[in-house]
């Protein structure tokens, strides 16, 4: 027993840095955000009240705690703007996740079925856009989607449309942007799972009389489910709080939480309300995070 003690101490020390890191750079900011969300806006620096009076001792603490309230959350609940932004975010993120699965799963399947020596190159093609700034890529979509943009130009020349389509600054443009930007996060986990599937499983299904369609639906897809769940989580979670895509590609009526948060913070300088929106987003994505964790665990269990 005693002989193990130093080893156990060492094992604990090794595990300490990640915890310290998470505490300093994740837990602490969340606590600060939570605190600000319970404060009131003020014309001051920082722009909220109350501030903790460190010299006030126990009394300072109690006046500080008494001044905190849930007013900002009540505003979120009562004002239809925030409710609409919440539903908007969920709808955009949910819809885009469904589209991403519909697009990303076949793409991942094609990747996994490609000749083994060509796969690294194809995977690199999926990853290559990351080498360019995200912002620049979204701006590129503006150039493609605007009235006199590339897409309209091509469609007009082909005679497929008589008048330019108004795509930019609509819901469609936001969807296109979301699906474009997050596609690698869906494709890569699904590909990783499909690539590891024993090819003999597909062969066994075919050997037992299943045509390619049945093989896909009854064997490949169910076994790739952990990857799809992981991909859906990786896409849905950041999309709920997405700001750049709805701001640049969406219209004035495109309501998403990230955009509301930004305007509360930078336009209205209402830090407390912005913080309350941030906490709301955090709570929303907790669900998918739990799902994601279970999905990944399920994948690990498979021999």
């Amino acid at each position, binding site marked *: 027993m005693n002989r193990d003690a130093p080893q156990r101490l060492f094992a604990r020390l090794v595990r300490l840095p990640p915890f310290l890191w998470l505490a300093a750079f994740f837990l602490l900011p969340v606590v600060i955000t939570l605190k600000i969300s319970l404060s009131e806006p003020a014309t001051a620096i920082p722009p909220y009240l109350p501030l903790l009076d460190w010299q006030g001792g126990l009394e300072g603490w109690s006046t500080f705690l008494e001044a905190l309230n849930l007013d900002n959350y009540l505003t979120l609940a009562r004002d239809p703007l925030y409710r609409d932004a919440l539903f908007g975010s969920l709808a955009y993120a949910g819809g885009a996740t469904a589209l991403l699965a519909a697009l990303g799963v076949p793409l991942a399947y094609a990747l996994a079925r490609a000749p083994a020596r060509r796969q690294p190159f194809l995977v690199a093609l999926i990853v290559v856009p990351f080498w360019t700034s995200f912002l620049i890529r979204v701006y590129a979509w503006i150039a493609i989607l605007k009235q006199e943009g590339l897409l309209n130009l091509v469609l007009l020349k082909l005679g497929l449309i008589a008048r330019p389509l108004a795509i930019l600054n609509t819901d469609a443009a936001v969807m296109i942007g979301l699906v474009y930007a997050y596609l690698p996060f869906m494709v890569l986990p699904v590909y990783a799972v499909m690539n590891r599937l024993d090819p*003999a499983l597909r062969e*066994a*299904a*075919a*050997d*037992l*009389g*299943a045509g390619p369609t049945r093989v896909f639906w009854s*064997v490949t897809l169910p076994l790739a489910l952990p990857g799809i769940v992981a991909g859906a989580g990786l896409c849905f979670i950041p999309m709920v709080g997405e700001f750049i895509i709805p701001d640049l590609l969406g219209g004035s009526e495109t309501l998403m939480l990230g955009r509301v948060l930004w305007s509360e913070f930078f336009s209205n300088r209402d830090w407390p309300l912005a913080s309350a929106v941030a906490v709301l987003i955090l709570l929303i994505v907790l669900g998918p995070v739990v799902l994601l964790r279970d999905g990944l665990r399920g994948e690990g269990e498979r*021999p």
Partner: protein
Amino acid sequence: MAAETRLRLEALTKRFGAHAAVDAVDLALEPGEFFCLLGPSGCGKSTLLRMIAGFEAPTSGRVVLGEADITGLPPHRRPVNMMFQSYALFPHMSVAANVGYGLKGLGRGAAAARVAELLRLVRLDGFDARRPDTLSGGQRQRVALARALAREPRLLLLDEPLGALDRGLREETQGELRAVQRRLGTSFVVVTHDPEEAMMLADRIGVMDRGRLVQVGAPADLYRRPASRFVAGLLGDVNLIPGRLGPAEADGTRVVATAHGPVRAAGPADPLAEGAEVVVAVRPESLALGAEGLPVTVADATFLGDRVRRLLRLPDGTPLRASGPPGEGGAQPVGAETRAGFAPDAAVILPA
């Protein structure tokens, strides 16, 4: 009927680039036969099996089942089923769903009855709802067998069916596999690298070497009358004594002049000219110590209960292995000088 189906391979060839994995293999399988493809890894036996199943397209040649040319048919259209080396059980399905996967054409009731019948056949009744990952290796192997038999294939292909089992289970399963095959009368083609397994299972063995089917025959014939040093060495321990071929004798045997005196052995299958360089292949159990034969020294003796294994040396130091009942030659201690002989029909002359 299954029992009347015959498989014929005609000049079947598979090339990967310049390398011929399977090189012009001709083979006709008897109906209801248990056939083993035996060879070291990389000899092309698995590729041959996969071409019969339809997973690899042959570069040239034909696969004919009964009267039908099935060379171009995709796997899901072939009346042939395969049991995979890894078993390839669907991990997300129950045992019953695995076994019933190929029974989609049947009605639900008929399929369920067939699954129950198959699980009884492989002695897994009551395992219907279990997942493959909760089964032992031997149980998984039996599920894979039941699943491969579900569609009443005219031909069952088995890729190293016992490879993933441990030794004790292997011998038990070998017997079971034979019993199932006899009961159903389906033709089985088994791929294995284990000569003992091939000899225990098969009616006939086809030995493959570097893509070619080098010899086909009943296990005993292959063991006693190998056509090459490769086959002789593959099927068990063998002594190869080099020498020069003498003239043909009236009784079909020939004398080979070795460095230590003449020996007599069954003539070679291929006609070889007098004076050709040959080897005489003798199994250790055919070498008897006594008054006749080549002069040897007993270098080592190991008592194994049912037999004694001896290491002998010819005067030039060439080792010979002999194995016999403990009583025989018991008076020959290590260091004794004696003679090692064999019956002419227990040895075979092979090209050097």
